[in-house]
């Protein structure tokens, strides 16, 4: 202890402190060495040199004088602090190895926790034991409890890395020192105190650094792992340490009754042996329970030695730089960080996702391949220079013999003299015995030149080529299967006419159909059976028939040559038929003077008796051939078209007043067909190229629809009234959206020849067209109420059942009013129904 009060010692303690931070093994050795120093000194010395007292203070336990050494007993209040090992108490003698660390340097104490190295765990142990035992009154009478507590304590001691170690000095009693020497601890317990002092005189005889129990080599593991085994571990000879036999209740009871040491008997969980604690152990435990410093000799009232001044000095003793915590981030950085945080919050920036580590092995290319595109940082779309081929075996000065040309190959090579680019090799492989004999390369200049050409002629830019598939240009149309129902098969053929059937019309109820033919008759058919119900000879080629849309009338308008006949077919409700007859029986009074212009064009005439019975009620004679007759939706007005009638080609008749008007005074061209608007007072007049829309109420031209075609054949209007379908003789079908424009919204070129008839369905979104190419084409034409959505047109089905006759195919097309059925009349004298 001579040198302790000197500076070198201080240095060494410092060193200890630092070392302790690195490794407990080193720490322990230091502690041992220091202790060794201590032990070499006499305890008297220790005690005398009271200055050194707490510097050296080891938790000593003077067993003999444990009762007597009152000086060493601590105050309860002090002890609390000490046990906690708080830095505030300089006098941390309680921490077992604190002796080395009591440097009293405030900085060191606070900055690093090395003051607690090694002792930390025993502190915990003490705490725990204190916690566990504080509440209960410790009484030795209560032996069972006590022994349990002892067991607990023992266990904790074992699990803690620090161990109580006893060392003996010559004079004094055992000094139990916490040095994690369980082995010694155990041994010592079994022998007499004096004996132990001799036995463990030199603690280096046993390997103090090894914490392993010599009996069991399982190490510091939870012993409950061995619960299911009969053994507890393995000894040094790799033999099983068997569990002791379990005592039954009776045995333990007898033992408790008989054994005076039962209360201090503890089972070592690692060996399973019962161990009787010696007095020293018991004393330590008692001190711990009382929350005193285990070392009875420790004097906590020793005078304070101020090794370092507690005052803050102007210059620091150590040149340790400021701790990182003392740094404040710079404002610039803080602003940058704030910006990034904002960007992340707004979603502009994404925080780097943690890369998932794939467990698959990663491979990296060491070298880039020849084919791979070179990636250059600033040059976008860089085109690398063409690379030269790597030399092969053939280019070797000493190629394998199979690379050398034989005669045939040489001949071939020579033959391609005029077309050297066709050669497989641009040289003849040569063989030399040694590199020395290789002559100068005669093609060097040539090759350099070729290389320059390669580089010079290499493409400088990438040309982006746009490839558009023809399918991409087509609109996306729904599958026709999804647009059911629509006519798909021919279901019925109405046979009976003997010449071309030019026109058909369906009764508004949908039970009957009327057809007009070139055989000078009109036939009425029952739709469902194909039965011709009635045949009415009309005495002229029937060019148009039209069923009166007024369901209170049973009337058909028939255009036969120059006459328009109003025919009562006599089918349907008898009451309506008879009422129609009575209505048409007598002509109403004509109170208006008919102008000469009209009178010369049109004459109304009551049917005579002989044709009355055929159903013909009224004959309206026109001055030219009537091409078309069409009803207004209310069924009172109907219009007739005479294409050759010049400025009187369109006549509007009124049934109730038996009156005719010629609405147009000027001829606008060859009128093809006319049509009434289904809801509004509009009148469509189609000349060869233009469809004119007139407002009948205001008597003015509303719109002119330009068809962009040469000759309009027929028109049909959508039941909604906003869409018009126009068929033309030049094979087109035009869909006009009247709200959209005066140009066709869609032009359907589906037919191969002239389109002769077009029709809309009244309820279903269907329209159809018949053409001279014998085919009837059914299309889906959905009109939306939404003005923003254009009509959807999907061609659905081509039905080619009619036969061609004199290059004529289908003349007229009409839909059933309620069913998704379509009729077509053709030049082959038949009418066909498709469902």
């Amino acid at each position: 202890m001579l040198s302790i009060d000197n500076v070198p010692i201080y240095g060494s303690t410092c060193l200890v402190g630092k070392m302790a931070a690195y490794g407990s093994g080193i720490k322990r050795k230091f502690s041992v060495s220091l202790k060794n120093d201590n032990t070499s000194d006499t305890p008297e010395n220790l005690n005398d040199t009271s200055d050194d007292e707490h510097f050296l203070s080891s938790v000593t336990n003077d067993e003999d004088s444990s009762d007597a050494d009152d000086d060493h007993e601590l105050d309860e209040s002090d002890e609390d602090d000490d046990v906690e090992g708080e830095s505030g108490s300089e006098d941390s003698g309680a921490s077992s190895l604190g002796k080395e660390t009591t440097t009293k340097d405030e900085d060191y104490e606070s900055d690093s926790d090395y003051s607690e190295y090694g002792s930390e765990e025993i502190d915990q142990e003490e705490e725990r034991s204190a916690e566990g035992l504080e509440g209960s009154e410790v009484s030795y009478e209560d032996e069972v409890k006590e022994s349990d507590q002892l067991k607990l304590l023992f266990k904790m001691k074992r699990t803690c890395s620090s161990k109580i170690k006893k060392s003996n000095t010559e004079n004094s009693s055992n000094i139990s020192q916490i040095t994690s020497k369980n082995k010694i601890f155990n041994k010592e317990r079994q022998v007499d105190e004096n004996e132990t002092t001799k036995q463990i005189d030199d603690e280096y005889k046993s390997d103090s650094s090894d914490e392993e129990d010599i009996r069991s080599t399982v190490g510091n593991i939870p012993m409950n792992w061995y619960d299911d085994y009969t053994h507890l571990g393995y000894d040094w000879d790799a033999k099983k340490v068997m569990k002791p036999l379990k005592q039954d209740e009776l045995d333990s009871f007898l033992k408790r009754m008989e054994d005076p040491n039962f209360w201090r008997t503890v089972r070592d969980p690692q060996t399973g042996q019962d161990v009787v604690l010696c007095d020293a152990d018991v004393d330590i435990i008692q001190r711990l329970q009382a929350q005193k410093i285990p070392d009875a000799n420790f004097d906590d009232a020793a005078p304070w030695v101020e090794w370092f001044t507690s005052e803050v000095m102007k210059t620091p003793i150590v040149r340790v730089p400021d701790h990182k915590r003392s740094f404040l981030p710079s404002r610039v950085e803080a602003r940058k960080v704030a910006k990034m945080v904002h960007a992340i919050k707004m979603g502009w920036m994404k925080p780097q996702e943690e890369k998932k580590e794939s467990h698959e092995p990663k491979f990296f290319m060491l070298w880039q391949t020849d084919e791979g595109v070179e990636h250059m940082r600033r040059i976008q779309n860089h085109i690398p220079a063409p690379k030269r081929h790597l030399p092969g075996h053939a280019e070797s000065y000493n190629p394998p013999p199979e690379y050398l040309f034989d005669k045939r190959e040489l001949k071939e090579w020579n033959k391609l003299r005029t077309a050297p680019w066709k050669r497989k090799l641009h040289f003849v492989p040569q063989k030399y015995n040694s590199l020395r004999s290789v002559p100068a390369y005669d093609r060097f200049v040539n090759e350099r030149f070729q290389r320059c050409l390669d580089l010079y002629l290499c493409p400088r830019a990438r040309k982006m080529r746009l490839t558009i598939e023809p399918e991409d240009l087509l609109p996306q149309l729904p599958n026709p299967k999804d647009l059911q129902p629509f006519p798909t098969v021919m279901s019925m053929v109405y046979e009976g006419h003997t010449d071309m059937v030019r026109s058909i019309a369906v009764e508004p109820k949908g039970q009957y159909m009327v057809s007009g033919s070139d055989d000078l008759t009109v036939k009425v058919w029952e739709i469902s059976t194909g039965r011709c119900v009635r045949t009415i000879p009309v005495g002229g080629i029937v060019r148009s028939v039209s069923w009166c849309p007024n369901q209170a009338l049973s009337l058909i308008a028939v255009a036969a040559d120059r006459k328009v006949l109003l025919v009562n077919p006599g089918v349907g409700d008898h009451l309506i038929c008879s009422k129609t007859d009575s209505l048409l029986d007598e002509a109403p009074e004509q109170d208006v003077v008919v102008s000469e212009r009209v009178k010369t064009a049109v004459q109304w005439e009551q049917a005579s008796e002989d044709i009355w019975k055929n159903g013909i009620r009224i004959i309206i004679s026109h001055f030219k051939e009537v091409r078309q007759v069409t009803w207004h939706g209310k069924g009172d007005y109907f219009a007739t078209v005479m294409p050759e009638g010049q400025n009187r080609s369109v006549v509007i008749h009124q049934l109730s007043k038996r009156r005719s008007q010629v609405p147009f005074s000027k001829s606008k061209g060859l009128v093809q067909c006319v049509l009434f608007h289904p809801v509004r007072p509009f009148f469509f007049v189609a000349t060869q190229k233009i469809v004119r829309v007139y407002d009948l109420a205001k008597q003015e031209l509303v719109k002119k629809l330009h068809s962009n075609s040469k000759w309009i054949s027929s028109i049909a209007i959508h039941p909604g009234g906003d869409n018009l379908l126009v068929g033309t003789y030049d094979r087109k079908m035009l869909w006009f959206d009247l709200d959209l424009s005066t140009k066709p919204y869609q032009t359907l070129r589906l037919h191969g020849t002239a389109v002769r008839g077009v029709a809309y369905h009244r309820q279903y979104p269907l329209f159809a067209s018949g053409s001279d190419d014998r085919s009837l084409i059914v299309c889906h034409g959905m009109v939306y109420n939404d003005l923003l959505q254009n009509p959807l047109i999907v061609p659905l089905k081509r039905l080619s059942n009619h036969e061609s006759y004199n290059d004529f195919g289908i003349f007229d097309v009409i839909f059933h009013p309620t069913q998704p059925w379509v009729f077509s009349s053709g030049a082959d004298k038949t009418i066909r129904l498709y469902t």
Partner: protein
Amino acid sequence: MWNNCLLYDDWVSAVHLKGGWILSGCYDNTLHLWSAEGKHRLTIPGHTGPIKAVAWVTHDDTLATFVSVSHDQTAMLWEWNVSTNAVECIHVCRGHERGLECVGISRSESRMATGGFDTKLKIWSAAIHEASDEGGESVPKRLKTEHGKSQVRTPLMTLKGHKEVISAVNWTDSSEICTASWDHTLRLWDTEIGGIKSEIVGNKSFFDASWSPLNGTLITASADRHVRLYDPRSNEGSLVKSTFTSHTQWVQCVRWSTTDGHLFVSGSYDHLIKLWDSRSPKVPLFDLKGHEGKVLCCDWSEPELIVSGGSDNTLRIFHSNQRK
């Protein structure tokens, strides 16, 4: 199976067989009575429009009554004295506003239901001799006196609901009628409350339907080449229990066998009558050939005879060797 051919002057549009007598209706507005052996018994004029459906009401050895419906908007109840071979129109049922299409006799033979192009289903009394004040809709005086000897009868009940032609009427119960219509629906009517019980919506117009009391299912002919089997009792799963596809044209008539719950016949515009087993939807059991025109009507009320009429102006009798 062999067949017999009875010649007519016009299309045979309706046929019904009972007790060995074949009652048939023709497009020339006449009714014809034949024995099952093919002997012509009577030609009955009376209607002014094509007959669309006929049905025996009662039948015994001496007296028989039957009904015929026509496009002249009337149904006529006739009484036929078998022994004297005299027929008399007892009642003229007036009330439909357009041509009639179908007639159905209730099981109790006291009621009949008719449907037609005026989309209304009318229920009449089918009894020949009954108190005239049985009730029903009031008879206009004009109609009462019009038809000479025969009395005018008015419907007991008019059921509205269909939107298009009622093409078939079947009594499924004493108070339940099943109708098929062109408006793609099959409807079950309750005559006691006078309303629709339930409705089955198909996707094609129905041309005919036949209900079998043996299995309670409904076989339908639509405006396509398929015959479909519906079960009006089930209300879950697909409505169409099976589809019988072999015809190549519209199927115009279907009839269940009255003795076998699995067999039915269908007549089509492809000139064929097919005999089906409801358990084999792909292939019919027999093709009954013979017609040279569209088959318009067929009947299988007697188990050993299948009769059919067509647009080739013939009525054909097919003898089946089916056991009773």
